[in-house]
């Protein structure tokens, strides 16, 4: 707009209405690729990734044995089923590893180290096997004890379970598998027109 030129808003509005109608089709960009599950479905690395985003090498938070245990715990929280992959395929353990490695909260870190130890003790006590070596029924039984008592006590293993569930949920539903395969999320794309309700009088019950 040139200097001091008054703006004719009505005129402008008509013009851009017309203009936007003509460019509409041409401007519609291709929709972003949605499904990219193939690479995600591969097995996770045997040792957790130890390079943070900054490029500095940081010591892994979990030992390989702890990492394996976190993988099985997260998979028990959100398992693979006929609809989509579970927490293991979505590499939730990598997400948890990074969260804890970077955390500045020492009590949170000790909740995890202590919790992993206590869950394995529970598994030994109930089934005579480590959690990783247990059947999925036995794994579910251990976590059910914690889940069913998660509002009754503040024992470290219960606090750990709440943290485990929180980070597993967070990591899973922000992963490619969680968003695209499991939830089949339809948004985050360019739309020509807004989507709405086609049935003007839906019954709610």
């Amino acid at each position: 707009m040139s200097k001091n030129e008054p703006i004719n808003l009505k005129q402008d509005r008509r013009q851009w209405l017309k203009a936007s109608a003509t460019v509409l089709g041409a401007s519609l960009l291709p929709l972003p690729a949605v499904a990219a599950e193939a690479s995600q479905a591969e097995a996770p690395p045997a040792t957790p990734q130890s390079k943070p985003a900054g490029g500095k090498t940081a010591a892994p938070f979990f030992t390989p044995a702890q990492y394996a245990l976190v993988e099985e715990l997260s998979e028990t929280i959100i398992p693979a089923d006929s609809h989509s992959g579970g927490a293991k395929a979505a590499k939730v353990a990598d997400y948890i590893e990074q969260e804890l490695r970077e955390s500045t909260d020492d009590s949170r870190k000790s909740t995890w180290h202590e919790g992993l130890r206590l869950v394995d003790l529970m598994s030994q006590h109930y089934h005579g096997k480590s959690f990783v070596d247990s059947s999925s029924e036995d794994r579910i039984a251990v976590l059910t004890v914690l889940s069913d008592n998660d509002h009754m006590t503040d024992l470290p293993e219960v606090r750990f379970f709440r943290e485990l569930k929180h980070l597993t949920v967070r990591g899973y539903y922000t992963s490619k598998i969680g968003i695209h395969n499991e939830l089949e999320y339809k948004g985050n794309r360019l739309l020509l027109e807004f989507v709405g309700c086609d049935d003007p009088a839906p019954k709610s019950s």
Partner: protein
Amino acid sequence: MAESEIDLNKTYDAVVVGSGAAGGMAAHVLTSRGLQVLMLEAGKKLPIEQELRSMEWPYNNPHRGELPPDRHALTFNEYTIRNPPYGPGFEKSKHLHSYIGSSDYVKNIVVDERENPFTGTNYAWVRARCLGGKTNIWGRLALRLSDYDFKAKSRDGFGEDWPISYSDLAPYYDKVDLYLGITGVKENLPHLPDSIFQRPTRLNCAEVTLKQSLQKMGRVLTQYRAGVTTDGLKHNKYRSRCWGRGACERKGGCDIHAAFDSPTGLIYPAADTGNLTLRTNAVVREVTVDPQTGKASGVHFIDSQTMKDYTVRGKVVIVAASTLESTRLLLLSKSRLYPNGLANSSGHVGHNFCEHVMGPGVTGQVKNLVGKPPTLDDGRPGGFYLTRFRNLTEKHPKFIRGYGFEGGSGARMFPQGTDAHGFGASFKEEVRQNQGSYIGMGAFGEVLARYENYVDLDPVVKDKLGIPALRFHYKFGDNEHRMAEDMKETAQEMFEAAGFKITHVSNRVLTEGWSIHELGTARMGNDPKTSVLNQFQQSHDVKNLFVVDGSAFVNASCQNPTWTIMALCWRSCDYLADEFGKGNL
């Protein structure tokens, strides 16, 4: 945009303090009227598209969209249990932010609480120090006020009427609509006047169900009226039309600028006139005064990066630093002539502080949507707005004024329902089956503008630059608490009437400040003894001083304020330019 260097030897026609909705609008109107304008912004100019990254998938973000581990955003519990200044006790975090700063996309937009302390009563004060201020991340609900608000005292006897009527402001609301773009649907409501709307969004099925049920109660649910251009703006090359991408719900902003923000909507076009000089990192700490004339002579500012002091002259000074920062600046601008601070002969600067009370709300489930194939529900700037229904034709026995609800329903990128009990296959299945079936809404109610709710300067505490901090004396009163009770009850009644299964009721009133709608601390009025500004946001005391942001509001109404801030500012700056041309300032 063309930028020019600040000229400290020049006397600018107008110095504008702040670059948000009000400062941007002042720059737009005055530069288009030919005035030479200097705009000073306390924060920096961010590479905003790189900050917002509206279409970034969470799995492509280093922390899935959440804050890096060295930062913390205050939570409701922390605001409630701790007292200002918020900072001590959070030493584990290198940076501490207000609650809105809890996402990777806003972390550089909001201030660090430790560098910008305040004291007094609990308050969730959200400040964005960067070009454009809070317009970079605003919620975009763009509503008009009506004479139910401007003449509220005449209706119920409380407070003051505004010195203007709806008819004075309506033409300027039209100008704002056309210049910036707004989406919505006409409803012909006397208490919520229509705008000149562009292409509307659409309600989804749960929302239509609620709308139809409300019609039987005589209540109106309408599409979210968003300050978003859905058709595009031919006169603005910096903004795209809305493409319904749907990241609008996350804490962040719109990186294609379909949602209004001050830089692309107002400041860049103003700069293109050649009449605007923009200086960022300029923290104004005083409006200077000519002791001979008693008029404002310019401002004194500190460069936040070099800590150097500067003064710059202006024929007119326009304060638009956001309600509470503008108030702080007036109070800081003490002189022999104005010992109580500038524009404060009435003693009302800082008082009559008002906003919106939030918290009560409800979440429900629509049974026949459980298990339906996933639908696209969030590809739009907002869901719905349920308009005010209290104290319009009938008088509520327990409180005056009113409230509205903002809400929405359907599937989101991160699903609702993950707080359900349990784990395993059934948990996973439940989250998937339920994801599109939720509907929720929360209320925004008018907080009465009361003299005893105020801010002043803390005598001891100073910010990082050594500028006295603001001290809050502000609490919700009985009217707000009684209104909040009613919000909670009506929310449940309306969901039950619509046949929704209620899954969660929010009872708690959120911390003061949560609405980010602080208003009223330099109110307009016809009487210089009880008001700070006249109907053109011009100081009664200092006629070349204007305060054009939300501080000028006489009451808060229950409608979100941004559109009214801009309409008022346009009207005032039109007047300013007229008077400037006549040599009256």
